[in-house]
C-alpha cells in the first residue's frame, strides 16, 4: 500500500471550488479544478489510492476501475511536479 502526501514545498490556496498551488522549490504555479482539486483536498492527510477512490466514489459518478486508473494517473502527474510525494514506508 503506497501512501501519498503533499510535499512541504507546496503552498496552496482555495479559490472558490478550485485550488491554486505553488511549488516553492521549482517556482511553478498550478491550477486544479474538479476531481483534481478534490483529490488535493483529500490529501490533507496521507492517503492511498484505495482510500482516495472510496471517497471520490461517494462524490462522483464513476466506477472503481475507472476511478483507480484516473486517480493513479493524477497522482503520477502530481508526483512528477513534486506537489505530492510517497510516504516512506
Amino acid at each position, binding site marked *: 500500500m503506497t501512501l501519498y502526501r503533499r510535499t512541504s514545498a507546496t*503552498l*496552496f*490556496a482555495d*479559490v*472558490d471550488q*478550485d485550488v*491554486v498551488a*505553488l511549488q*516553492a*522549490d*521549482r*517556482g*511553478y*504555479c*498550478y*491550477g*486544479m*479544478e*474538479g*476531481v*483534481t*482539486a478534490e483529490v488535493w483536498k483529500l490529501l490533507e492527510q496521507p492517503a492511498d489510492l484505495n482510500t482516495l477512490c472510496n471517497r*471520490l466514489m*461517494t*462524490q*462522483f*459518478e*464513476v466506477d472503481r476501475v*475507472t*476511478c483507480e486508473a*484516473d*486517480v493513479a*494517473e*493524477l497522482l503520477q*502527474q*502530481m508526483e512528477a*511536479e513534486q*506537489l505530492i510525494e510517497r510516504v516512506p514506508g
Partner: protein
Amino acid sequence: MSDPQPVPDGVLLCTSCGLCCTGALHDTAALDEDEEQAALAAGLPVVRGAERLDFALPCPRLEGTRCGIYPDRPRVCARYKCNLLLEVESGALPLATALGRVRTAGTLLANVATSLPAGAALPEIRAHLLPRTGEPRRDHPALRLHLTALTAFLDRHFRKPSEGRLLDIRAIASPSSGTPT
C-alpha cells in the same frame, strides 16, 4: 412624481468593484493623443511610449471602488467592459453571482495587499514575481501564492479571452470521467 429608475445591473456591478482601476487586471490604460493634458491635469501618471500614450495603474483617482473623476474620466475607462460585466449585461450571469465573484476577488486582493511591500504597485510586483518569460521566481513564496491565486481568479472570470492571460499556470488535468453525484 415618477418612480426612481432602477439602477442597471452593470452600474451596480462596476460601482461595487473597481478592480479594473487597481492594476489587478492591467498594467496600464491607453489614452487618446488629445487626452494627455487633461490626464496630467487630473493627476494621472501619464506614460508616453514609442507608439502609444498610457497612464499607469493603479489609478490615483480611484476612491474606494468608484472613480473620483467620473465625468472627466478618460475615454478608455468609459469604454472598458470586463468579462464579468459583459456576462452580466448579456444575461449569461446573474448579478448576484457576479457580485459574489467581486467579493472573492476583493478577499484575494486583500490577501495580496497584506504581503505587499510598502509603496509597491500590483503591476510592478506582478512583473517581478510572476514573470512571463525566463525562469520562474522562487522568492517571496507567500506573496507569490496570494498573487497567483488573485491573478488566476481574475484571468478566469474578469479578463476577456481577447486580452489573454496574465498568468502562466500549469494545469493538473482533471480526469474526464466522473460527474458529481
